[in-house]
């Protein structure tokens, strides 16, 4: 049982982070806190992917040693980490940043209209306006 936790600690770490982010997205009322929760959620997934690229046996970072200029010696693949998840997560990081940018712009638009960022207050203002529509 204990080796389940210790040997796979990267999975446990990312699950904990993901659930914290998910709870913040659902349980909190402030729009910025929801956004922060979404960010934590996405970064947990990115960390998980990157952590799966490690190889046993002391693999080092995927940059060819003594590699200035044209590389003519054969490269031993087992010595270097798997670079593909790093590259995929580069794209995912960019996507996360763009989503955060769009979400923050939307939050500014909402604030300008309602003067508050709490979701329950915004819904109250909307119900109030629905009951007494302005001419």
């Amino acid at each position, binding site marked *: 049982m204990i080796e389940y936790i210790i040997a796979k600690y990267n999975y446990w770490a990312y699950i904990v982070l993901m659930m914290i982010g998910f709870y913040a997205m659902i349980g909190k009322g402030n729009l910025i806190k929801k956004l922060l929760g979404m960010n934590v959620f996405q970064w947990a997934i990115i960390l998980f992917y990157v952590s799966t690229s490690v190889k046993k046996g002391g693999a080092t970072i995927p940059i060819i040693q003594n*590699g200035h200029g044209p590389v003519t010696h054969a490269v031993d693949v087992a010595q270097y980490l798997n670079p593909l998840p790093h590259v995929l997560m580069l794209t995912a*990081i*960019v996507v996360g940043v*763009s989503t955060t*940018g769009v979400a*923050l*712009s939307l939050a*500014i638009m909402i604030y300008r209209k309602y003067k508050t960022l709490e979701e329950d207050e915004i819904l109250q203002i909307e119900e109030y306006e629905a009951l007494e529509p302005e001419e």
Partner: protein
Amino acid sequence: MIREDENIIIQTICRILIPFIQLFGLYVIAHGHGSPGGGFQGGCILAASFVLIVVAFGLPEAKRRFSEKQVNLFSSIGVFIYAWTGWMALLLGANFLDYGRLSIILPADPVHARYYGVFAVEVGVGITVMAIMVSLFIDLITGGKHEEASE
């Protein structure tokens, strides 16, 4: 409201540092294949230098150097560099983004042509990322109203 004379230290240090930050950003873009770096990372560092101008000298000064129109232009130019590199390969007869085919016009063999092609798209990515990051920052701190930008 920060008084003018308190800014002297910050402004002097930033005036010295910002060119070096930009040089470092260009270095990170150019050495993406051999050390940690690449287009996105270098673009972010270049954008950080503009953010430093905004923080130290105020927004109108930054807009004097890198106006909203230029930001939009740069973001599109980066995408064009990327797409044009792929399009050249298409025009020369191979599949899209097949940089090896660029060896017909560049003085290199197909393997090195792929290397140069990747370098070209990294430059394009760096320019676009820099422009978008600066644009995001300025939009968010002015709340979308560029005309009312002060301090």
